[in-house]
């Protein structure tokens, strides 16, 4: 056996040696490069339609043992085509193919053990007509409509290796261009019929990919490891699970691309996903230059995980959909022009691009979370119109440090905000609107709870420890103030302006609406509506405190101001309760139990009010109007009020309004000579206390106003008197004070008073009175108005109830002394069943007039008229009737109490006329028998015109004085 084996071994060895020698002879001597190169060149020219050049062809065996290998050195294939980047289809330094000849001979299979391509350039080009430069096989004479099939049973390439190969594929119909530089690749290929598959490992130092002339990948290094399939008939390429490293960034890649040449469609289904989170900056670097301008001004850094999909049909009419999911983590974002940098930013964004419809491109943002300055923002939203003016629809919530809002405000708005706001905000805007601060076009709704709020604008500072703030842009509830709506609810809101002005409000519920605040060329409109449970406001030493306050107001800005017109025109209404007003000009606190008023730019209508000041309490209803004209010095401030009071201190109120509307020089105190007072008349000193103050001088009737008060006062303090049941009209008109038909009760007498007081200057004050007292005790009259005793001293002699009418006027100096030369007056006194009180004087006169001793000092009737001129009092003849006697009395006296009376007995039991003159003064009374001036049964004198006139005047005085007397019997 051993021998047999030895023989067989020797035989086989010999055969192998012989075969090897034969092969060596063939390779080295028969198939030398010099011999086979022309042959190969010739065959290539036959086989291929393109121009082919090979420098050297080499057949190897031992170096590729056990397979034969064919090395082609300097292979060049040229296929010029119009539009192609190069005429050269292939240029290779070295091409080597190792083929298993036995497989081909035995199994009809082409098994290429190795296919090497080195230092090569492969330029694949398809022109617009679909002609490819790699179609180098001569066309068959008959059109081959059969499906593609290998001409042998099997094709297997165990290894294809590219070393330093430049590959380019430009497909005009597909508008696709791919350029790979310095490709080093290794792949396998198995093919059966029309289906090929294998594995590819490829690396290139630079990859360019363009579609439709847009460069999507530019000179990026790339590496891919993947299995692949290729259906030749469907031209379907599949990379089901590729590992791609692009620009150093690793991705999972899945590609399914089918070129449906019949339909002219290119079907794509490409998905990719980054392996974990990638650094954002290299990703941004890969953004095609065509899209780079979208990134202008944007700084984005951090990490992001990417997932994307490109799916759809590419043909003349259709493009695929592209979607990209970005999962940001711990990133930062800044935009040039935006004053904010977002940091610690995380979130998920889906970028959806339907290449067929740019208008539908949008970005969906989910779970966005970022911080900027000291604020923390979360939210989600949508951004669309990406190719135009991007539109944002964001829903956010978070914690805002209000100081961070300052950069968003226009520079011209010197508003400083502080505080922490927590809440949510919805925003709808376009990028240009945000960049241009077009807040009138931005839609916003926000609701925040604010702590430690502080806002300062110029010298105005607002603070709130805690507040709920809701705002909306635009404001849908009003066209006029449609820009914004702000709702503020706070337990306490404090306002401070400078060091002098402050206000505190409790339980604030306020709604503010505005027109466009951002366009300074437009007149602003501001609406306010709300309630405050308590308000305390202080200005310097002035102070107001209120209970519940309800406000509705609209303020219209006036752009073109004229004169002193208001720059803001207010309209609205105010209701408040339990108000307390402390003014330096008012010695006491003004209490306002309730007040409700409406206001317009020209009018204030007090619908109801209750006011208390000092001892006064009153209800005021009515209107204050003509404000605009008043402010422009073209008209008077008009007031028409119903003044109802239980107690009114008139002195106090007059002091409040003393001197209103006067210039300082008009109120300057003038030196007054008080040494002389010829009239002896002066308003009661106590009255001065009510109508003036030592500092202010006399009462100066307010100027610039036209007020009418319909007065109803139960009890009024005037001077030292107490008037009851006061009814009538009081008017103040530009320096004039008038009382019209004012009825009142004083000292149990019902009186009517018309009066006029005006103050042209401090030392020249006019006082006119038209005074009517009916059914008054003469004694009370004299007590009430002591000056009556000076004018009509004879009244002192009468007792009983009478009727008194008096009209007088005079100018006063600044101490209220009468100016004698200006005194004018008329008076009428009448009475019945009076009693003569002065017994001694009566007795003496009665004795001269020869009255019966039994005559009682009772006057049946009295009707006298007086005139007052300067210091002179003229008593017109009047008749008194006593018992059986009638006497006519006339005369004159001076206010210095020197008098000169005459009494004529005109009817008596005495059979002749008797008269008496009474002259002198009260201390030195002269009573003398005189010739009667008035005849028995006195009638108007015939002798002189003056007598007739006197009688006419008497009647005139009485008529004039009693005319229009309210309530006269």
């Amino acid at each position: 056996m051993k021998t047999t084996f030895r023989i067989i071994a020797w035989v086989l060895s010999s055969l192998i040696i012989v075969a090897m020698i034969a092969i060596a002879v063939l390779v080295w001597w028969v198939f030398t490069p010099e011999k086979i190169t022309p042959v190969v060149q010739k065959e290539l020219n036959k086989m291929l339609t393109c121009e082919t050049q090979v420098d050297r062809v080499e057949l190897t065996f031992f170096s590729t043992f056990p397979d034969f290998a064919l090395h082609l050195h300097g292979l060049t294939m040229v296929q010029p085509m119009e539009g192609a980047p190069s005429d050269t289809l292939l240029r290779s330094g070295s091409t080597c193919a190792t083929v298993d000849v036995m497989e081909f001979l035995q199994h009809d299979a082409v098994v290429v053990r190795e296919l090497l391509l080195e230092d090569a350039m492969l330029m694949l080009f398809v022109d617009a007509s679909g002609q490819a430069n790699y179609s180098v096989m001569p066309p068959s004479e008959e059109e081959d409509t059969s499906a593609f099939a290998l001409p042998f049973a099997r094709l297997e390439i165990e290894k294809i290796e590219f070393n330093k190969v430049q590959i380019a594929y430009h497909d005009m119909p597909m508008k696709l261009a791919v350029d790979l530089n310095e490709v080093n690749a290794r792949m396998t290929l198995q093919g059966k019929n029309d289906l090929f598959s294998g594995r590819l490992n490829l690396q290139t130092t630079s990859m360019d990919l363009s579609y439709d002339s847009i460069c999507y990948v530019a000179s990026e290094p790339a590496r891919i490891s993947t299995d692949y399939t290729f259906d030749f008939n469907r031209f379907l390429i599949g990379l089901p699970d590729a590992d791609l490293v692009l620009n150093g960034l690793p991705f999972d890649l899945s590609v399914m691309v089918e070129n449906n040449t019949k339909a002219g469609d290119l079907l794509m289904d490409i998905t990719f996903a980054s392996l974990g989170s990638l650094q954002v900056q290299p990703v941004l670097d890969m953004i095609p230059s065509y899209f780079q301008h979208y990134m202008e001004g944007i700084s984005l850094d951090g990490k992001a995980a990417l997932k994307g999909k490109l799916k759809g049909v590419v043909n003349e009419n259709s493009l695929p959909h592209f979607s990209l999911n970005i999962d940001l983590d711990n990133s930062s974002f800044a935009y040039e022009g935006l004053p904010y940098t977002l940091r610690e930013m995380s979130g998920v964004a889906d970028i959806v691009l339907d290449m067929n419809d740019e208008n539908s491109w949008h970005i969906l943002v989910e779970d966005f979370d970022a911080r900027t300055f000291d604020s923390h923002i979360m939210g989600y939203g949508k951004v669309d119109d990406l190719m135009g003016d991007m539109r944002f629809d964001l829903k956010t919530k978070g914690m805002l440090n209000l100081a961070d809002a300052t950069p968003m405000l226009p520079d011209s708005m010197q508003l400083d905000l502080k505080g922490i706001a927590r809440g949510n905000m919805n925003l709808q805007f376009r990028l240009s609107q945000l960049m241009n601060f077009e807040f009138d076009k931005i839609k916003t709704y926000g609701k925040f709870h604010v702590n430690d709020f502080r806002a300062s604008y110029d010298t105005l500072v607002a603070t709130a420890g805690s507040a709920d703030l809701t705002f909306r842009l635009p404001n849908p509830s009003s066209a006029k103030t449609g820009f914004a709506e702000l709702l503020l609810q706070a337990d306490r809101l404090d306002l401070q302006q400078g060091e002098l002005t402050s206000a505190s409000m409790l339980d604030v519920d306020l709604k503010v609406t505005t027109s466009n605040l951002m366009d300074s060329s437009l007149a602003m409109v501001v609406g306010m509506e709300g309630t405050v449970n308590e308000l305390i406001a202080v200005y310097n030493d002035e102070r107001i405190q209120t209970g519940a306050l309800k406000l509705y107001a609209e303020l219209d800005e006036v752009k073109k101001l004229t004169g002193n017109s208001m720059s803001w025109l207010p309209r609205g209404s105010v209701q408040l309760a339990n108000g307390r007003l402390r003014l330096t000009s008012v010695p006491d606190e003004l209490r306002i139990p309730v007040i409700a008023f409406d206001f317009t730019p020209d009018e204030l209508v007090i619908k109801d009010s209750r006011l208390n000041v000092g001892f006064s309490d009153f209800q005021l209803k009515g209107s204050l109007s003509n404000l605009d004209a008043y402010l422009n010095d073209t008209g008077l401030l008009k007031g028409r009020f119903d003044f109802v009071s239980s107690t009114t201190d008139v002195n106090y109120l007059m002091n409040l309004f003393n001197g209103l509307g006067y210039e300082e020089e008009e109120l300057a105190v003038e030196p007054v000579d008080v040494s002389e007072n010829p009239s002896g008349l002066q308003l009661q000193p106590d009255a001065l206390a009510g109508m003036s103050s030592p500092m202010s001088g006399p009462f100066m009737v307010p100027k610039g106003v036209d007020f009418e008060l319909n007065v109803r006062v139960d009890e009024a303090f005037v001077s030292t008197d107490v008037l009851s049941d006061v009814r009538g009209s009081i008017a103040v008109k530009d320096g004039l004070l008038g009382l019209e038909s004012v009825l009142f009760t004083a000292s149990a007498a019902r009186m009517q008073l018309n009066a006029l007081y005006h103050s042209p200057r401090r030392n020249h004050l006019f006082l006119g009175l038209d005074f009517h007292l009916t059914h008054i005790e003469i004694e009370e009259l004299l007590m009430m108005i002591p000056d009556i005793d000076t004018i009509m001293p004879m009244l002192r002699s009468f007792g009983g109830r009478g009727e008194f009418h008096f009209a007088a006027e005079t100018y006063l100096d600044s101490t209220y002394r009468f100016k004698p030369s200006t005194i004018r007056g008329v008076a009428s006194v009448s009475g019945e069943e009076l009693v003569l009180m002065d017994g001694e004087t009566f007795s003496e006169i009665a004795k001269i007039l020869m009255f019966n001793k039994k005559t009682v000092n009772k006057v049946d009737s009295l009707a006298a008229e007086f005139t007052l001129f300067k210091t002179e009092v003229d008593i017109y003849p009047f008749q008194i009737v006593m018992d059986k006697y009638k006497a006519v009395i006339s005369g004159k006296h001076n206010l210095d109490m020197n008098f000169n009376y005459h009494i004529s007995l005109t009817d008596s039991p005495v059979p002749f006329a008797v008269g008496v003159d009474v002259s002198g003064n009260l201390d030195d009374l002269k009573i003398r028998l005189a010739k009667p001036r008035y005849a028995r049964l006195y009638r108007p004198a015939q002798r002189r015109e003056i007598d007739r006139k006197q009688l006419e005047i008497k009647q005139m005085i009485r008529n004039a004085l009693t005319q229009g007397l309210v309530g006269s019997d």
Partner: protein
Amino acid sequence: MSRLKFISLITIVLSLFLVSCEQDEEVFDEGLLLGKWQSQEGGKTEYYRYDADYTGVMWDTADDVSEEEGMPFEWSLVSDDLTHYHIMVTGGHKVPKFYVVTELTATSLSYKDDFNTLYHFLKVAN
């Protein structure tokens, strides 16, 4: 003499007496009154101005009243009866003052009232 005759005689005698006692009224030219007159009483601070339309003003500078602030009046001069109607603002009342002129020249004016109080003025301006 019957009682009736006696009464008639007495009446006739008294009538004649009374008529004869009446002084003749002096007639003054009211044109001389026009102008500004200064009182010669006291401090001579009182003024009257008579205007041609039978109105006028009076004022007393001692009371710090100027001519512009003067008190208005209406006047009439019939024979020697000079009447002032001082016009009140209040109610439009008029306060009459009756005088009898005793002298009226281009420069001097004197009148007296019922109680023979004499007032004397000098003209200071026409």
